[in-house]
C-alpha cells in the first residue's frame, strides 16, 4: 500500500517537473512584460505534435525530437512576439487577451484540421523499460522527462539570475525605459524571453509526448495547469513555478489515485479558484 502511494507521489513529482518547465515560460513572459499568453498550453500541444512527427514519420528518437521541438517553438515564439505581442502590448487589455486567445484557437484547430481529433499514441518502446528502485517501479520515459525538465528549469533560473543576459532581461522587466537608457534593447530582450518561453514549451511537449495522450485539445488543460502553477508560485518567479509545478503534479497524482482519475483535473481547477479567493499573490509572493 505505502509502496503504491510512494510510487504515485514519485510519478506526480516527475510529471510536476514538466509542468514546472512549461509554466516557467509563462511566468517569465508575464513577469517581464505583463502579458499572459493564453496560447501557452497550445504551444506545449504543438511541441507534442512536432515530436510526434519526428518520432513516427521521420523515425527519430527523443534525442532528435526534443531539440527540434524546442527550436521550432522558440522560432514560433519570436515570430509571435514581433508579429503580434509587440503591438497588442501597447493596446487595451481586450486586445492583449484576444490576441493570444485567438492564437490559441488558430493553433489548436489548425492541428485538429490537419491531424484529426483522434488520440494519437507513440510507439511504446520509444523510451522503453521501467526501473525498479527499492521496489518502486518508474517508467523510463517519465523518469527521463522529469529529470530533464527539472534540470532545464533549474538552468533557466540560473540563466536569469547569474548571467549578463539574465540581468539585462530583469532590467527590462524592472523598467524598460531605464534599461534602454543603459544601452539595453528592450525589444531584443523581450524577443529572447519569448524564444525561451516558447522553447521551454516545445521541450516540455516533446518530453511528455512519449507517455501523455496526444490530442489537439490537450492544450486547454495544460494551459489551465500553467495558470494554476503560475498563480500558485507567484508571477515572474521561476523557483516559485518549480515548487508549485511539483506540488500540483503530486496533488494531481494523489487525487487521481485516491478519488478517481476523472476528478484529478477538477481538484486542480478548484484549487486554483481557492487560491484566487484566499491567496492571489501565490505561495511565495509578497503582498
Amino acid at each position, binding site marked *: 500500500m505505502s509502496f503504491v502511494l510512494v510510487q504515485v507521489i514519485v510519478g506526480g513529482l516527475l510529471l510536476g517537473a514538466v509542468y514546472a518547465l512549461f509554466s516557467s515560460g509563462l511566468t517569465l513572459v508575464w513577469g517581464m512584460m505583463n502579458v499572459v499568453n493564453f496560447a501557452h498550453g497550445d504551444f506545449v500541444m504543438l511541441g507534442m505534435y512536432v515530436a510526434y512527427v519526428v518520432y513516427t514519420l521521420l523515425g527519430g528518437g527523443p534525442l532528435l525530437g526534443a531539440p527540434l521541438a524546442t527550436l521550432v517553438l522558440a522560432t514560433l515564439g519570436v515570430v509571435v512576439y514581433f508579429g*503580434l505581442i509587440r503591438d497588442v502590448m501597447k493596446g487595451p487589455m*481586450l486586445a492583449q487577451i484576444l490576441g493570444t*486567445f*485567438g492564437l*490559441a484557437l*488558430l493553433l489548436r484547430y489548425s492541428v485538429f*484540421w490537419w491531424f484529426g481529433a483522434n488520440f494519437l499514441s507513440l510507439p511504446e518502446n520509444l523510451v522503453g523499460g521501467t526501473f525498479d528502485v527499492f521496489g518502486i517501479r518508474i517508467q523510463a520515459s517519465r523518469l527521463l522527462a522529469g529529470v530533464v525538465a527539472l534540470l532545464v528549469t533549474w538552468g533557466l533560473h540560473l540563466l536569469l539570475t547569474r548571467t549578463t543576459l539574465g540581468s539585462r532581461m530583469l532590467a527590462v522587466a524592472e523598467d524598460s525605459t531605464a534599461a534602454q537608457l543603459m544601452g539595453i534593447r528592450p525589444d531584443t530582450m523581450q524577443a529572447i524571453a519569448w524564444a525561451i518561453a516558447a522553447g521551454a514549451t516545445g521541450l516540455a511537449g516533446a518530453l511528455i509526448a512519449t507517455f501523455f495522450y496526444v490530442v489537439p485539445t490537450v492544450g486547454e488543460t495544460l494551459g489551465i495547469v500553467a495558470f494554476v502553477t503560475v*498563480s500558485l508560485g507567484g508571477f515572474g518567479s521561476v523557483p516559485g513555478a518549480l515548487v508549485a509545478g511539483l506540488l500540483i503534479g503530486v496533488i494531481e497524482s494523489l487525487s487521481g489515485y485516491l478519488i478517481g482519475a476523472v476528478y484529478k483535473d477538477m481538484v486542480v*481547477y478548484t484549487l486554483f*479558484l481557492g487560491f484566487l479567493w484566499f491567496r492571489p499573490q501565490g505561495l511565495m509572493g509578497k503582498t
Partner: protein
Amino acid sequence: MRRALWLSVALALIVAYPLLFSTPFQQRLGALVLLYAIAASAWNIIGGYAGQVSVGHVVFFGCGAYAAMGAYAHFALSPLFGIPAGIVFSVLIAAVIGVPTLRLSGHYFSMATIAVAELARLIVTNTEYLGAGVGLSGPTVPRNVFDLSFISSLPYYYLFLATLLITLGITWWMTRSRMGFYLRAIKDSERAARSLGAPASRTKLYAYMLSAGLTSVAGALYAMMFGFVDPESGLGILISVKILIMAALGGAGLLFGPLVGAAILVPLEEISNNLLGGKGAGLTFVVYGAIIVLIARFQPGGILALLNRLWAKRATPSKEAAAQEPVHAP
C-alpha cells in the same frame, strides 16, 4: 433625429426579415443570428463596457440551458420555469468568480473564467442528475404552447427578437445610468476612477452579474429551440469563443456591435458547415482564430468602431461647413 430614423428602418427590416426570406433555412438562420446576438450583447456588458475579458461565458449559457431542460426533465414543468433558476445560478457563479478576481488585474479574471467553464463542463459530464455525457432533453411533443417547442423557426425568431430588444434596452439604460459613467471611467483608467471615489470592484461585479444573468437567458432559449442540451453544446469552450468573437468583431463596447458581429459570423459558419460538412468544423475555428488575432492586432474596436471613424472623417468637413454657415448668413 437621423439616428432615430435609421434605427426604425433597421428595426422594420429585422421585423420583416422572416416574412421576406421565408424558407425554413433562412428563418432558422435569422433566429440563430438573434440568439447569438443576445449572448454576445450580454457578454458586451462585462467584456466591452467594463473591459474585463471573460473567456468562459459559456458557463452562464450552460446554466440557463440546463435549468430550462432540467425544469422539464425533472419536474415536468415548462422550460420557461427554468429561466429564473438559471439566472439565480448564473449570478451566484458570477459572484464566486468575480468577487476575488475583479479586485486583481484583468488577467486573473480571464484565467479564472476559463478555469470555471472547464470545471463546470467536467462536473456536469460526471453528474448523473444532469444527464452526464448524454445531456438532458426537452419535451419531444409539446403539451401546450408554454413548452415553447415549435417546428417552425418563426416563433423563435420573434421570441429571440423581443429578448434581444430587452437586452439592448437594459444595456442602453445601464450606459446612461451612474453605473455606465463609472464603467467608462474605470475602463479609461481604473486608478484615476478609484481615486475619485468610483467603487471600481463593486461596479465591475454588478456588470458581471448582469451580464451573467442575461447570458443564461440566451442559453435557456437555445436549449428550447434545439430541444436538448449536452456538455458540448451547453458548456463547450467553443460557445464561449463564438460569443466572444461576435462581440469583438462587431465592436466591443458599442451597443449594436454584437448584433453586427452575429449577423456576419452566424451565416458564415452555417454556410461553411454546409459546404465543407464535418471536415469544416475544424476549419471554421481556424478562421475564427485568425479573425480574432487580426482584430486584436489591427482593429481592437471592431467593425463598427472602424465605420464610425470613417464616417466621422467624412462627416467632419461638412460639419465644419454647417457650423460656419450661420456666421455667413445675414
